C-alpha cells in the first residue's frame, strides 16, 4: 500500500521549495494554461524567462507573452495549442520574439501536456534560444540555394560516388551533358564508364587509380563520352576523395564535369590552322626553290649554248646549238606555264567554291578519258553514291580527278587488267574520296617524301612529267583539304583525298 507522500504543510513547504529551486535554474521554465474555450494564460515563468525576455516590473504586472512574440508567430503558436491532437503528451513549437536589446531571437518551446478533469490544458516546459542554430540553418540554406543556382547557371555537372555501395549521384547538368534525362537511370559508376571513348578509357582509369592510391591530390581527366544521340563530347572531370577509411581506402568521392567540347574543337581548329599556315609556308619556300632551280637550269643552258656559239664559228655547230636553244626555250616556256599555274593556286586568296556533285564530275572525267580507258581495257568501279556533294572549285575537282585517273591508267601493271576503284566515305567527320588502283605501285620508302614534289617522276615512263601530283596536292590544299597515299610496289596505289566538308 502506498504511503501518503506528505501532509498539507509538507506540500506547501515542498511547493515553496520547488518554486525557489525553479527560480534558480538558468533554463527558461514556463507554464502555460489553455482554457476549454481556447484562452491562453501563463500562470508561471521562472526568473530566467523574465530576465531573458527583458521584462520590466511594469510589464511584469500584466505580463502577456504576446508582447514580445512576433504577431504572426504568436497567432501560429496559439493555433498550434488550440489544435493539439487528443492524447498529446509533448508539445514543441518554434517562434520568433523581438527583445528590446537582444533584438530578434528564435525560440523553441518544448513542454509536457496535461489535461485536467475540467478540460484545462496545462503545459510545463522550457524555452531555448535557438537563434544561432536557426542562423546556421538559414545560412546553410542560402549557401545550398546559391550552390544550386551556381550549378544550374553554370554548365558544370556534379557527381558523388559512394565507393562502398557503388551508389552514384549525377546532377541534372551532368546528365544533360550526355543528353540523358533524369529517368535514364545510371546505376553505378561503371555504367557511366561504359560511355567513355575506348581510346580515352585507359588514361581515365589510370588517373582515377592514382588518386585512389593517394598518389595525386585530386584527379583530373579530359575524355570523350558517348551521348545518347551517339556523338562524342569532350568532358573534363575533376574529382576528390572526401572520405577514406582507416586503411586509406576511398569511401566517397565527389567531383565535377565540364563540357569542353567547344574548347576542344577550337583547339583542333587552331592546330589545323597552324598546320595549314605551316604547310603554306613550306609550300612557298619550296616554290621559291623550284623557281630558282628551274629557271636557273634553263638560263644556265642558254648561257652555255650561247658561249658555244661564241667559241665556235662553224655553221654546223651554230645550227645544232640553235636547235638546242629552241628545246631549252620550249622547256622554259613550259616551266613558266607550270609556275604560273602554281602561282594561281597558291596566291588566290579566295577560291570560288561550289556545291558539286562528285559522281557527276567523276563521270565527266571518265567520259573525257573514255579512249584511254577502252584502249587499256580499264575496269572502273564507281562506288560513289549518286547524291554525294562536296564544296570545291569546279575546275580543280575536274583537274584532280583527271590527274589521279590518268596516273592510274598510265602506271597500270602490264601483267594484269587495270582496275580503278572510286570510293566515298566519312572519316572523322571528313568526306573522303578514295581512288584505288592495282597498278605498278610506288616504293614509298624510297620516294614517299617527295611523291608530291615538283618534277619528280618515279616510273620508267616517258610521259611522266612530274608536275601532276604537285599541282593536284596544291589544288587540294588550297581548298583546305589534304591528300595521303598508300602504295605497295607491284600491288597498287591508294590515294585518299580529304575534303574540308564538315558533316
Amino acid at each position, binding site marked *: 500500500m502506498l504511503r501518503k507522500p506528505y501532509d498539507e504543510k509538507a506540500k506547501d513547504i515542498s511547493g515553496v521549495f520547488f518554486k525557489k529551486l525553479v527560480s534558480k535554474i538558468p533554463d527558461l521554465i514556463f507554464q502555460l494554461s489553455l482554457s476549454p474555450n481556447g484562452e491562453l494564460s501563463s500562470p508561471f515563468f521562472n526568473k530566467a524567462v523574465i530576465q531573458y525576455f527583458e521584462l520590466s516590473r511594469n510589464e511584469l504586472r500584466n505580463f502577456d507573452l504576446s508582447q514580445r512574440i512576433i504577431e504572426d508567430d504568436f497567432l501560429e503558436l496559439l493555433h498550434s495549442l488550440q489544435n493539439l491532437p487528443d492524447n498529446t503528451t509533448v508539445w514543441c513549437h518554434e517562434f520568433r520574439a523581438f527583445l528590446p536589446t537582444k533584438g530578434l531571437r528564435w525560440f523553441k518551446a518544448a513542454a509536457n501536456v496535461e489535461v485536467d478533469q475540467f478540460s484545462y490544458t496545462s503545459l510545463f516546459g522550457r524555452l531555448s534560444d535557438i537563434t544561432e542554430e536557426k542562423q546556421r540553418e538559414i545560412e546553410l540554406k542560402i549557401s545550398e540555394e546559391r550552390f544550386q543556382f551556381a550549378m544550374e547557371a553554370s554548365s558544370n555537372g556534379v557527381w558523388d560516388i559512394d565507393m562502398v555501395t557503388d551508389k552514384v549521384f549525377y546532377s541534372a547538368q551532368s546528365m544533360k551533358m550526355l543528353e540523358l534525362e533524369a529517368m535514364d537511370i545510371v546505376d553505378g559508376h561503371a555504367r557511366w564508364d561504359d560511355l567513355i571513348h575506348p581510346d580515352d578509357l585507359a588514361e581515365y582509369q589510370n588517373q582515377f587509380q592514382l588518386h585512389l592510391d593517394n598518389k595525386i591530390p585530386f584527379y583530373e581527366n579530359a575524355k570523350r563520352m558517348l551521348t545518347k544521340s551517339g556523338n562524342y563530347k569532350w568532358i573534363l572531370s575533376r574529382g576528390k576523395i572526401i572520405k577514406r577509411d582507416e586503411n586509406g581506402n576511398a569511401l566517397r568521392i565527389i567531383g565535377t564535369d565540364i563540357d569542353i567540347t567547344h574548347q576542344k574543337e577550337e583547339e583542333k581548329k587552331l592546330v589545323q590552322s597552324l598546320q595549314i599556315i605551316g604547310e603554306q609556308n613550306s609550300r612557298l619556300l619550296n616554290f621559291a626553290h623550284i623557281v630558282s632551280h628551274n629557271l636557273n637550269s634553263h638560263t644556265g643552258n642558254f648561257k652555255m649554248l650561247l658561249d658555244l656559239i661564241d667559241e665556235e664559228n662553224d655553221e654546223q655547230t651554230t645550227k645544232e646549238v640553235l636547235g638546242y636553244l629552241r628545246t631549252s626555250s620550249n*622547256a622554259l616556256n613550259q616551266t613558266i606555264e607550270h609556275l604560273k599555274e602554281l602561282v594561281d593556286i597558291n596566291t588566290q586568296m579566295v577560291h570560288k567554291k561550289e556545291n558539286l556533285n562528285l559522281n557527276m564530275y567523276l563521270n565527266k572525267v571518265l567520259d573525257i578519258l573514255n579512249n584511254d580507258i577502252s584502249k587499256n581495257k580499264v575496269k572502273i568501279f564507281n562506288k560513289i553514291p549518286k547524291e554525294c556533294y562536296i564544296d570545291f572549285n569546279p575546275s580543280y575537282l575536274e583537274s584532280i580527278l583527271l590527274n589521279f585517273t590518268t596516273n592510274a591508267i598510265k602506271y597500270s601493271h602490264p601483267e594484269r587488267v587495270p582496275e580503278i576503284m572510286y570510293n566515298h566515305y566519312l572519316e572523322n567527320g571528313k568526306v573522303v574520296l578514295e581512288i584505288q588502283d592495282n597498278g605498278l605501285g610506288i616504293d614509298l620508302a624510297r620516294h614517299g617524301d617527295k611523291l608530291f614534289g615538283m618534277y619528280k617522276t618515279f616510273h*620508267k615512263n616517258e610521259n611522266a612529267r612530274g608536275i601532276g601530283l604537285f599541282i593536284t596536292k596544291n589544288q587540294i590544299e588550297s581548298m583546305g583539304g589534304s591528300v595521303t597515299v598508300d602504295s605497295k610496289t607491284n600491288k597498287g596505289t591508294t590515294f585518299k583525298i580529304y575534303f574540308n566538308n564538315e558533316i
Partner: protein
Amino acid sequence: MKFNDVFVVDDDKVFHFIIKKLLMNNGIDVNPAFFENGLLAIERLKKKLENGESTPDLILLDINMPILDGWQFLEEFKRIKNKLEKDIIIYIVSSSDDKADKSKAKTFEDEVKNYYLKPMTAEDLRTIFAV
C-alpha cells in the same frame, strides 16, 4: 690526272650536248657515257663490276632527276663502293643554289669532291680535267 672513262648523269639532254661540245672545244679527249637518271647510271656501274670491266674515273652528277635522283644514286653508290678497284671522283653539277642541297652534299664528303652550280663554264671543266 687523266680521265679516260667518264659518266655524265643528267636528265637534261641539252646539258649532254653542251658537255660534249665543251670537252671537244677544250681539247679534252674524253668520250663520256651519258645517263638520263641515277638508276641507269648505277645499273651500268653494277654491271661493269659484275663483268669485271673497268669502272669510270669520274662522274658528273646532277641532283634533280627522275626515277633515281642524285642523292639516291650516292646512297646506292656507297653500298657498292668497297667493291671498286679504284676510286671514282664524283662532282655534283646542279642548278640548285639551295643551301639545303649544298649542305647535304657535304654529308657525302667521302664520295663527292665538289659541288658545281650550273651553268658550267669551260673554266670549270678545265679545272675538273686539270687541263
